[in-house]
């Protein structure tokens, strides 16, 4: 898709909703160097959100949608949970079908798009919570990685079931007292990034969404590597401020605390050898392009 596809017929322009008119005029479909810095100066692909005030997940959504390298040809797959309250506002085709089956849906979707558009890039990005990714959907998460399905899996890790009211999840910390963990969780936080590596993911990052530039970099890498090489996985801390007893303005500090060295969301990145070669190649090409542009100017 290019911006042409969303252009409104002049005869119908005035009856279209203002946010759609805005999307046509000011969105960043097709903009090669799009990124988090467009936020505030362009029309975001997220119109609004139905999350709690100050929810870090809303920040994560904004940064991810601003960072996708190819939103005009990207389809996203979600799951049930707080994310499914946001997706209806997202100006990228997205699928919700059931709870936990997101990586299975994405496998079928990616293959269908590859069959139908063999000579075009169609990126698929999964975005789901930790319950969907690690508990009810773990089988399908891992099996998609074993099969080397070429899409990105993003897990919003808030360490509990937020949308149902704060129950224990596999990614919850040991000892945390929550609903369905009345005496504290009895086992460790599941180490999915390590499992992802053993399962064949080519790019894995564990971090918070406190820094938009970092989110932009890892999302871009994850999508580009998934497109060319194989599965990629991002585990992003998006604390549920409601369930951990924080106020609306405290989400950012919570993430900063959780990403300190030796804390559970200290930045960790794994890049497979083929993915390293791809990133080096892309960096070299970007450098050449920049040099060529510079030469053209001078």
């Amino acid at each position: 898709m290019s911006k042409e596809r969303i252009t409104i017929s002049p005869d119908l322009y005035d009856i279209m909703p203002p946010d759609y008119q805005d999307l046509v005029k000011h969105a960043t479909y097709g903009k090669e160097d799009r990124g988090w810095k467009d936020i505030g100066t362009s029309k975001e692909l997220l119109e609004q959100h139905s999350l709690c005030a100050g929810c870090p997940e809303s920040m994560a959504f904004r940064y991810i949608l601003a960072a996708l390298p190819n939103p005009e040809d990207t389809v996203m797959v979600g799951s049930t949970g707080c994310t499914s309250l946001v997706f209806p506002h997202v100006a990228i085709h997205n699928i919700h079908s059931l709870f936990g089956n997101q990586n299975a849906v994405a496998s079928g979707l990616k293959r269908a798009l590859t069959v139908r558009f063999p000579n075009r890039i169609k990126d698929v990005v999964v975005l789901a919570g930790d319950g969907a990714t690690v508990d009810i959907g773990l089988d399908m998460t891992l099996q998609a990685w074993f099969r080397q399905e070429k899409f990105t899996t993003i897990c919003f890790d808030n360490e509990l079931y937020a949308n149902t009211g704060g129950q224990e999840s596999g990614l919850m910390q040991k000892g945390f007292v929550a609903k369905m963990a009345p005496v504290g969780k009895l086992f460790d936080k599941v180490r999915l990034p390590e499992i992802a590596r053993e399962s064949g993911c080519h790019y894995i990052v564990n971090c918070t969404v406190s820094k938009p530039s970092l989110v932009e970099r890892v999302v871009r890498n994850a999508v580009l590597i998934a497109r060319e090489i194989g599965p990629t996985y991002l585990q992003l801390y998006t604390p549920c401020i409601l369930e951990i007893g924080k106020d609306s303005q405290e989400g950012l500090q919570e993430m900063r605390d959780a990403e300190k060295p030796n804390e559970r969301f200290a930045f960790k990145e794994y890049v497979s050898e083929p993915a390293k070669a791809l990133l080096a190649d892309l960096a070299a090409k970007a450098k050449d392009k920049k040099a060529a542009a510079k030469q053209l100017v001078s």
Partner: protein
Amino acid sequence: MDTTSIIGTKNRKEQIITDPRVMMNDAPRTPSFFTGSEVIKEAVRRANVDVMVAYPITPQSEAAALCGELFAEGYIGDYFRGESEFAVMSQCAGAAFGGARVFTTTAGPGTLRAMENFPMWAGARLPIQCIVTCRGINSPLSIQPDTIEIAYLMQTGMLVWHAETAQDFYDWILKGYMVSEEPDVHLPLALCCDGFFVTHTKDTVDLTPVEMCLPPYDPYRSPVPCMDMECPPVRMMRDPFVMKSNYISYATHASWQQEVWAAAERSRKHTIAWLDGLIETENVDADILIVASGTAVSQGREAIRLLADEGIRVGLVKIKTLRPWPEEELREATKRASHIIVPEFNVIGWLARELKATLPRTERIIAGPRVCGGMTMPPEIIVEGIKKALGMRSGVLAGRGS
């Protein structure tokens, strides 16, 4: 304005894309002696399928594997083994959301494991075709034929057809896509047969020419947007209905559920044209009727032959589609009957229940005979059931101590 047609052009395997009515109704047929599983493969070969997802479960494993050979030969766009039936049906959903014509097969416990997906398919208006080769679902473990899973499928919003023979199966796989992909239908189809009896027996089936195939699926005829970013990504709604407890939310969900079932109703006109009616009848002026679906129809035919030898005239109603349910047709066909015998291959008698909920004068309906757990249904037990209903002495079955 110039118009172009894809009819007469070639697909990825150099098959000629043929007007489906010409292919199914007019093209020459070649009699071939095949198992039901091989017949599934031959129908899929001609169906221009984009994506198939497979998983082993008896008795559909052979058909699912044979379709893999079609992929290797280049007839199917993509094919892979999923990790469970729940995952497979979700993978099928993903492929259908992405605009592919999708085919899969399952059976018994697999159908039940996948069940959460089926109302989702219907609600998302995904015209996936799922072959269901029915088998038992009870504990202790059984792999034998039993049609109880159809009772669950009938409540999902899917179209549900019940094939009697391998020939039905061949024709209905191809015709099924034509019905379920109609813009005013656009629903998944559960095409059921009785496992083993149809899948693992050989029969002579008249095949359409191998060089002809159906036109490809056009996802832009769907009543809901295809998720491929080839049409404007409109925001679906200002407020997600899932979180709203208000009248607008309830009304939205209620009206959409009604629309899904209305779409199944709208499939009638297409199905009647393609299958030559939702039911098939023989001698419905008789006082006694056998009403059945699947291979129970075949056993009913044998029972009718045995009874004819004794001078007892019995008519037959074969139900082809369970969803949509042929209510008017059944009322008309059974209006003169005083005894309606309903033989079934399951313990609960779901077909008799449907009939009792539909037909007037339910005292006419004899729910049975029924067999289950893999038992065969000798025509003699249908004969006995009919004689019993008529108040006649029956010496047909030996060893019953009667």
